[in-house]
């Protein structure tokens, strides 16, 4: 469609911005993680920071917690997104309003959601108060601990609330683009509603929402604001550890902060590759 030269003109500006910022930032970060920090007169190239990190007692629990939270949040978001998309594609009274409400979380910053969830599900939050009013609990301490908890439930709630419409709208777009025909074809060939969903709709939706789910997985794995506000301080998610190290007054902690960020990136990449493999295998089997 386009000549090579015009292609370059169209792509280059965006690519330059991304390359300079991303690759440049990554390279500098990586070199710092190896101990190369001319500002403080450190010119080493070594793996000290990485070794110290991995050996530190908090690392493994943090890693496990991070994996747990990001896997569960992604999974829940995908399941709820598919379920809601299947419903939203039908006609019903009040669809316009419900669709608008559905899109609403897209626009709400994570920070705001975190505040909302905190005020909703903490032990003195709105839900606990409601539980008290109806006599389910007699003391705030009896309400389950959902924020600043061991499993990061509050953190997961925030991400699920926020990301369901993102995946759901992608699923809706996929469903809309394929229309009702495949479904009807399956029905007339003898598939019941569940079988139609399982063997026809799902395999058609999954490839479409795969990239989106990878995006949110990577985001949850590495973002920092929500676990900082709603997470326990020990073990904390890796991103929180990294931020703490980075803002430590002791500049010697800098290489470790960088090393942590690089490690997070490596973990994300590994898990994303694994996730793609897995979902492709599931997809193949579901046909």
């Amino acid at each position, binding site marked *: 469609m386009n000549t090579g030269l015009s292609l370059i003109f169209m792509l280059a500006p965006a690519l330059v911005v*991304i390359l300079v910022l991303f690759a440049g930032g990554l390279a500098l970060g990586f070199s710092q993680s190896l101990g190369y920090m001319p500002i403080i007169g450190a010119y080493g190239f070594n793996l000290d920071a990485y070794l110290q990190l991995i050996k530190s007692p908090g690392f493994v629990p943090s890693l496990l917690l991070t994996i747990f939270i990001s896997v569960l949040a992604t999974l829940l978001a995908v399941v709820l997104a598919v379920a809601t998309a299947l419903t939203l594609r039908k006609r019903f009274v009040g669809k316009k309003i419900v669709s608008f409400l559905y899109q609403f979380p897209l626009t709400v910053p994570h920070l705001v959601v975190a505040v909302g969830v905190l005020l909703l599900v903490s032990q003195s939050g709105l839900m606990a108060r409601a539980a008290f009013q109806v006599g389910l609990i007699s003391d705030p301490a009896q309400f389950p601990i959902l924020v600043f908890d061991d499993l990061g439930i509050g953190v997961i709630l925030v991400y699920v*609330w926020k990301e369901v419409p993102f995946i759901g709208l992608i699923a809706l777009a996929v469903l809309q683009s394929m229309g009702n025909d495949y479904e009807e074809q399956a029905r007339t060939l003898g598939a019941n509603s569940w079988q139609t969903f399982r063997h026809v709709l799902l395999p058609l939706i999954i490839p479409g929402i795969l990239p989106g789910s990878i995006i949110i997985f990577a985001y949850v794995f590495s973002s920092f604001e929500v676990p900082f506000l709603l997470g326990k301080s020990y073990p904390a998610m890796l991103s929180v550890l990294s931020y703490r190290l980075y803002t430590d007054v002791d500049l010697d902690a800098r290489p470790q902060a960088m090393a942590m960020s690089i490690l997070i990136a490596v973990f994300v990449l590994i898990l994303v590759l694994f996730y793609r493999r897995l979902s492709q295998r599931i997809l193949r089997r579901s046909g």
Partner: protein
Amino acid sequence: MIDLRRFPSWDRREVKGCPACFRVIHVAVIVAIVVGVLLPVIPLLVWSFSHSWFFPEILPMELSGRAWTYIGSPLSKVANALINSLIIGAVVTASAAVLGIPAGRALGLNRFRGKTLVEFLILAPIIVPGLAVIMGIHVLFIRLGLVDTLFGVVLVHLLPSLPYMIMVMSGVFANYNVEFEQQAYSLGAGRIRTFVHVTLPAILPGIVTGSLFVFLISWSQYILTVLIGGGRVITLPVLLFAFAAAGDNAVTTALCIVFLAPAILILLFTSRYLSGESGAMGGFGRL
């Protein structure tokens, strides 16, 4: 020819079904969407007007406009932060559109060697955690004198947001028929007229959706702003984070609402593009 008649006719195991179940589930999902979306928002609204509101009261004991008065006063720097956020969001969105639309077109319409690599590069900033990159960029920007400046913040906001614009646009262009443009040329329309009357209407849903994402990413960005802005560039998320961490619920929630309002306004105008027939969200399914 094989005699098909010897097939036993239409044998089928009974498959359990529940006709009423689907309707019930359908309604349940709609109710769940409405309730689920509104739940975390309710405490925000109520808290911002409350003076004292202790457990186990389900409604505030005393209402007050204190939080709103404070937010309105110059002391709180909210007006300043709001303006900063809006300026940054607008500039980032415009830049992402200028950079991202041509890039999306190049990717959506063409197949060329190295395309996978280019796509990978564009996706990388959203898959690879921002922390890993931002710490390196911080060092780079210190050298370039871009830290603590609005321009530096704008640049760094482009990193996580530009990929969204490109993804959405490449999805839109993948469904776009260039022959409409060629038809317009051959009917005597010039380049500009063709763009305005032919290309633009076709890709508008994509531009709107992409811009919405870019703006929202910039609008809710905390960590990049705080690291590059270094406490000098105050935006709403920076302010909110500080208040949330300090634990003044009334002011925090009032700030949350200020933070939400423009996003809702924008969604009011862009909602129909998100789940309409345009399929602009489908772009996330194609990379």
